[in-house]
């Protein structure tokens, strides 16, 4: 079976085209001048420039972390271009003004920036290289008081909100990549749902890296005010390139009293070729802060990137707050992933759930790294963690590092873990009934991921299933 499984891994990455578009780029390198340039290009207020500079100075004192179970060549941070924007008129009055070449790109990705999206009820913000290109449904959402726009627009139009919350969940000193992001971030999405408002549609951001030699450093900030509800989805793709490109994003979620934020990711950055050449380094910091009676739920389907380093986390600060993490991560060929979640219980009666499903095929290496901390103040906290690995073939690997720290004896903790292999016997059983090995694998993998897929919004669940099928094609013959 080993050889049959190898064969499935031979799927072309279908989002690997490059868009030929003129862009406005900064020279490679990182120093205070570059930061000033980015800030000036974006017409930012002084406080934000100061914050960036503070971050850069701090970053210069930091070391790239080495604790993650991933291997890669040293990144030359001075060789990266920290700003690249598609050239177009400064302000857009309507979507029709978006560069047609750009529009075609998004159409190829199956993302319509036009009104068709109304039918599926999804509002989209599209980020191309470093800059947000267009946000749909802004006006409609605004009627409810919902702000959904690019981060840059938010800085201009809602500086108080941005200033109050940016860095409040992931401080600029947090970690090497988050600090780098704080210094150089160029755009991202911003979202604010006012008190008591239930956002009537899925909000969604599509990120695309296009230019060569650029990094993408976007920053997303979502604030759900008291009693508000929002469901948010992000999708990511990139062209095929021989060199590795760095993606170091920061996502901050703030769920105020009684609010609910559901954040779903379908990550399909270019994973590199079969020999492990090229691909995106996806080093991302995602964290949410949950106040009283609120709930933050992360769902992720990670199939892309050469290396993934990411631990969407919840700080359960308020009493009765709830944190959830549902994850499917797939590593094929030479992909590596070190991912998991951190749940920090501070408030009383806080609850968290971690369900992690890792699938490894080819030479894929995958590590689950999870931390659950119950602080002294967290009376009657509960955590349930489940961490399952599925191996296809015998050249891949799965590793599990659950860290648990309990400072309050009333805590109830449950941890389950399993590792299984798609066995020769299972494949034979399916084939003996007439089902091809490829369909059999996709059936077994989808069955394995069911608990996570059902957390995704309906249409994205279907997309995610297809994506897994595509990513595994060639690992069984």
């Amino acid at each position, binding site marked *: 079976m080993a050889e049959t499984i190898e064969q499935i891994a031979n799927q072309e990455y279908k989002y690997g085209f490059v868009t030929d578009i003129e862009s406005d780029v900064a020279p490679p390198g990182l120093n205070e001048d570059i930061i000033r340039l980015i800030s000036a290009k974006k017409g930012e207020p002084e406080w934000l420039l100061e914050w960036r500079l503070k971050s850069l100075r701090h970053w210069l004192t930091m070391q790239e972390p080495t604790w993650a179970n991933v291997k890669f060549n040293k990144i030359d941070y001075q060789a990266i271009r920290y700003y690249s924007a598609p050239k177009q008129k400064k302000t857009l009055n309507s979507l029709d003004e978006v560069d047609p070449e750009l529009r075609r790109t998004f159409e190829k990705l199956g993302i319509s920036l036009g009104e068709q999206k109304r039918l599926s009820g999804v509002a989209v913000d599209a980020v191309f290289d470093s800059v947000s290109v267009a946000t749909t449904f802004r006006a409609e959402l605004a009627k409810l008081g919902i702000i959904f726009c690019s981060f840059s627009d938010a800085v201009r139009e809602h500086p108080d909100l941005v200033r109050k919350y940016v860095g409040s969940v992931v401080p600029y000193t947090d970690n090497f990549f988050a600090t780098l992001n704080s210094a150089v971030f160029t755009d991202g999405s911003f979202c604010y749902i006012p008190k008591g408002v239930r956002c009537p549609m899925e909000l969604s951001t599509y990120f695309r890296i296009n230019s060569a030699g650029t990094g993408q450093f976007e920053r997303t900030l979502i604030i759900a005010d008291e009693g508000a509800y929002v469901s948010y989805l992000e999708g990511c793709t990139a062209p095929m390139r021989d060199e590795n490109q760095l993606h170091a994003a920061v996502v901050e979620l703030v769920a105020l009293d009684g609010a609910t934020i559901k954040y779903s990711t379908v990550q399909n950055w270019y994973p590199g070729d079969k020999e492990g050449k090229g691909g995106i380094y996806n080093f991302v910091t995602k964290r949410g802060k949950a106040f009283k009676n609120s709930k933050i739920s992360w769902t992720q389907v990670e199939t892309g990137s050469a290396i993934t380093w990411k631990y969407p986390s919840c700080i359960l600060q308020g009493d009765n707050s709830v944190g959830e993490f549902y994850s499917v991560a797939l590593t094929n060929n030479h992909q590596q992933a070190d991912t998991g979640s951190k749940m920090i219980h501070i408030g009383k009666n806080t609850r968290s759930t971690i369900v992690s499903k890792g699938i490894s095929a080819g030479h894929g290496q995958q590590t689950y790294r999870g931390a659950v901390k119950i602080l002294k103040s967290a009376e009657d906290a509960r955590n349930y963690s489940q961490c399952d690995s599925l191996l296809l073939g015998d050249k891949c690997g799965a590793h599990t590092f659950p860290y648990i720290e309990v400072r309050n004896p009333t805590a109830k903790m449950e941890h389950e873990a399993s590792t299984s292999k798609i066995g020769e016997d299972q494949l034979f059983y399916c084939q003996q*009934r*007439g*089902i091809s090995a490829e369909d059999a694998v996709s*059936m*077994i993998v989808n*069955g394995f991921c069911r608990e996570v897929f059902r957390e995704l919004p309906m249409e994205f669940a279907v997309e995610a299933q297809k994506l897994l099928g595509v990513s595994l094609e060639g690992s069984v013959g």
Partner: protein
Amino acid sequence: MLEIKNLHAGIDGKEILHGLDLHVGSGEVHAIMGPNGSGKSTLANVLAGRPRYHVTAGSVSYEGKDLLALPTEERAREGVFLAMQYPVEIPGVNNIYFLKAALNAVRKHHGEEELDAMEFLQLARQKMKLVELDEAFMNRAVNEGFSGGEKKRNEIFQMAVLDPKLAILDETDSGLDIDALRIVAGGVNALRSEKHSVLVITHYQRLLSYLVPDFVHVLANGRIVRSGGKELAEELEQKGYEWIEQEVAAGAR
């Protein structure tokens, strides 16, 4: 229907079948008996195309085609069904979904329209009755947590739905209680027609009294050493295998 000639086959480099001949005509039910380790499951798995089993010599023709040249799933789609001695569990995959995928793969192969969920359910319900399986089983994962007997009944249920031309039952009767045995036999008898052939591997006369085979063969040391009618099974039940082995040894001398 099935013509096996001088079949030499084995597993992981070890030869188990040393020149086996067998002819199964259309509509016939053949029983294969024989001591433990004699190669019965090996024969079944070789016919079904299980990986790790390999053929070193001989031929198998199935409906005029070279069976050994067909990939595993193709054999299944052409109507070869193996009810396994140890049915496999597939966690997370719904039983009914699995079987629908299987049936539709077979139908597609024959250029027939695939059944939609409603049509399939109707067919499945009907067959479920035949094997007296509760509908609750259908919504569980394939064989997961099924008792030994339930797994065997599920095999017969799948067979009933897929309607194979050549059904191979590898000790489907072992581990069954009396009622289940009757049900399994009923499932096989319902399949019986001029177009369906059955190869039943068993250690016990009991199943054969419900099934009544047209032929009984004894497999020992990788060869068919004796063939006869249903009386042979009765004789074996009484006398065991030793006498045959002795006769064979004497004949060889």
